């Protein structure tokens, strides 16, 4: 197989944007993706900027990393707005995200959170019920107020992914379906060992999400990537009236309406991992729990029917991205969002592309160096 300047491992949003960026800057690029549970299969299309309460509860030790990276999230959402103009449109809407509170404790929590986020430059404000009624009259009676983060938004990932793939194809990027089992160094470059073929390249952009840990480990970097299968649901269409991305101060919920009217409900409920050869299985508790929260917070959607549920793969590490060359194999550039993969994907992809080509990345990659992980003991 023809050698390329760059091999991108992982054809999800990170790999696609990295590949497009590299090809637009003159590199020959091949993207190889394992398919099934990999490659831009199950994104939900929420653009998260404010700290997610679910994440703060689940991984309190990672909160400092997330908080430090808030400007990075904002920049990532800004980049989505830009590529929606240049490569879109993707049904991109940026009316902001509402994090709802039903109790005084929750309101107090959100107020504290909003102050911390404002200090990091986010456009946040607290809304009382009267203010909410003006922009979200469909909310249920228990909702007392909300934090509005104007930097947040949503888009249709099906549209975005397919247009991005079309752009990659138009740039002559070779897209291959294969699972990469390992990477070897070779004179003047690298060889990625796939199940079907070997892929030679000058450099590799490692955009393999939860699969990246195994590929980086032999080079001494212990990227702690973990697959986190998450439950999702979608309803039949209603009039597109819910403009905001909806979350909750305590409950696990993300809710948004696509421009085509369907409502996508998620929020980090777990699914059952069935290994890399089968899609994750839906858990009854997640289905009932997740839809139940949505139906209580937004009673006017109760008359709509759920058409489908599925599970997607999120990737977690330590709450921050890993972007940059591996010290044990400098021809490999890590590109792992580590959280909110779809939101951060384009920015992480562009930064990795810039690093690979020696250009200045759009954001400072220093805080995201993969070197922060302890070296693997031999």
């Amino acid at each position, binding site marked *: 197989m023809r050698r390329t300047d760059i091999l991108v491992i992982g054809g999800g949003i990170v790999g696609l944007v990295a590949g497009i960026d590299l090809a637009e800057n003159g590199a020959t690029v091949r993207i190889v993706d394992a*398919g*099934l549970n990999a490659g831009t*299969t199950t994104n939900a299309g929420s653009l998260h900027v404010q700290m997610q309460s679910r994440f703060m509860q689940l991984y309190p030790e990672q909160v400092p990393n997330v908080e430090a990276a808030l400007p990075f999230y904002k920049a990532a959402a800004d980049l989505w707005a830009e590529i929606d103009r240049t490569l879109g449109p993707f049904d991109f809407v940026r009316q902001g995200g509402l994090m709802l509170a039903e109790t005084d404790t929750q309101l107090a929590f959100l107020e504290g959170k909003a102050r911390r986020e404002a200090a990091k430059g986010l456009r946040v404000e607290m809304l009382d019920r009267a203010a909410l009624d003006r922009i979200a*009259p*469909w909310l249920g009676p228990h909702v007392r107020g909300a934090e509005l983060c104007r930097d947040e938004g949503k888009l249709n990932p*099906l549209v975005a*992914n*397919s247009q991005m*793939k*079309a752009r990659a*194809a138009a740039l002559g990027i070779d897209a291959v*379906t294969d699972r990469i089992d390992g990477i070897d160094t070779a004179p003047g470059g690298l060889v990625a060992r796939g199940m079907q073929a070997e892929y030679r390249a000058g450099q590799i952009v490692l955009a393999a999400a939860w699969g990246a840990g195994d590929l980086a480990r032999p080079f001494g970097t212990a990227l702690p990537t973990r697959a986190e299968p998450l439950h999702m649901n*979608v*309803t*039949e*269409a*209603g*009039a*597109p*009236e*819910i403009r905001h991305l909806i979350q909750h101060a305590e409950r696990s919920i993300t809710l948004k309406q696509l421009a*085509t*009217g369907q409502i996508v409900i998620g929020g980090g409920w777990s699914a059952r991992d069935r290994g890399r050869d089968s*899609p994750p299985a*839906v858990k*009854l508790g997640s*289905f*009932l*729990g997740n*839809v*139940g929260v*949505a*139906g*209580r917070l937004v*009673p*006017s*959607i*109760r*008359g*709509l*029917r*759920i*058409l*489908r*549920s*599925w599970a997607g793969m999120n990737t977690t590490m330590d709450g921050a991205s890993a972007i940059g060359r591996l010290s044990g194999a400098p021809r490999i550039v890590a590109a792992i969002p580590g959280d909110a993969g779809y939101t951060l994907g384009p920015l992480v992809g562009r930064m990795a592309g810039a690093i690979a080509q020696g250009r200045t990345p759009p954001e400072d990659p220093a805080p995201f160096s993969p070197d922060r992980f302890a070296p693997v003991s031999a």
Partner: protein
Amino acid sequence: MTEIQFSFNGRQIRARQGQSLASALAEAGQLALRKTAKGEDRGLFCGMGVCQECLVRVNGVPNLRACMTRAAEGLAVTRQDPFPQLADIPVQAPSPELIRVDPEVLVIGGGAAGLSAAIAARRAGASVVVLDERKIGGGQYYKQSADAAVLDAQQAEGADLLAQARERGAEILVGVELWGAFDDLLFLGHQDGVPLVARPRTAIVATGAYERPVMVPGWTLPGVMTTGAAQTLWRSDRTLPGKRIAVCGSGPLNLQVALELARGGAEVRLVAEAAPTPLAHAKDAIALARADPQLARKGLAMLLGLKARGVAVRHRTQLDRVIEGPTGLLAHFRGPGGRSRVEEVDALCMNAGFEPQNEILRLMGARMRYDAAFGHLKTERNETFETTVTNLFAVGDCAGLGGAPAACIEGRIAGRVAAARAGHGNVGDLTAERGDLARHRRFQHSLWRMHRIGPEPAKTIPPETLICRCEEITAGQLRAGLSDAPGHIGTLKRATRVGMGRCQGRYCAPVAARLVAEQTGKPLEDLSFFAPRVPIKPVSIATILATQEALDAPD
């Protein structure tokens, strides 16, 4: 019979008590029931709750299937708009009730196979609950009258099975829609929004089949419906789908329904049968007559009946397209040698084979294999019709097409075995049942050889033909999507939205799977189709809330 009245978009519609909304509206000449996102009219199509095309609003509640909803005095029915305003949707409080059933044998589907299984299991002493999606038991083959009047021997046979099941003490719950099936035989459903939780000892799936359409440009127009939908209108409600009718596709159901509608007073202009004339299958005809002389005579009587009424049955004749004319649907047919003919009709009925309703079985992980002759998945079963999932049985057409007589025998065997599994005696001698089953299968084998039972190759479908009715995606768009996202039905779905609509891929999935198979050269298998997912049928968030609250509540 009690006369009632309801309104449709303000117009008063007369109906008979028990009649479905779809039937009363068809009788009133109202075939278009909703608008799609692209502004197209749609109406009754499958007649059995599968296609989700006949959605209407009833007293403000959107997304109700007119074919599954009974007319009632004073209902305000309106045309369903594609995007109901959230503020206009009545907020439903979760139902405080819960139906809990924990029988030794749960039978899912109250048709030929299911009722036979229920009777056999009760006879052996097991506790039995039958769940049926329709408001009237009996299933698609025995289609019972809404007013319990008996039309013919076939209905009488069904009425008898229903009566036997009830007399023997099987609990039959009608109007129950199952939406979830989980490990360890946990089934979730609802009856008009009241949650149902079933945790049986054994389960017999007898969900039957739905009809494979003839996909041509115009097959989504109101007035074009499956042959079974037209039959339900007639047999259940004594409603004709229209005055002038044509029937197309292949198989004996088309002949039977053509004759029934003709007897009911319809003007049947044409029965277009894709297969060559039975005279070309002399060997099969003889084998068929040998296997079951009585059924063979019934078939012959049907052909003679059609002839006596002057109904033309044209073989090797296929539907090309349907166009809306000023005074009816213009159905264009192509006959032998490319001869074309156009029939102007009020209703066009189509059936080109069947697709098993195997969603529950696939969801629970029962192993499937693809049957190339029928063009659909068959469920792997042992000699007592148990699937590869312990204590889960599959009988009748849901496991692969076999016809009603075979379904009854399979049901009787599985019912006995499931009862024995639950501790009720021994199965006993099955030799006689197995002999009957073998004979019926010989009959079916010869019968199907005389018709075109397999699907058409996907590559021959004209590009402008809608494949995904729900998301309004054409064959041409699917092919374009296939070149963008090759290799798998899942990637094709994400590239084109095929299968993302309300019918959950029931009509488009077989075509999409064949397109991918034709492109990749890979043989069809279970994984070629959309991954089975909860919910099996669309279920309202109000019902899910009610289910969650009921399950969380202490017993």
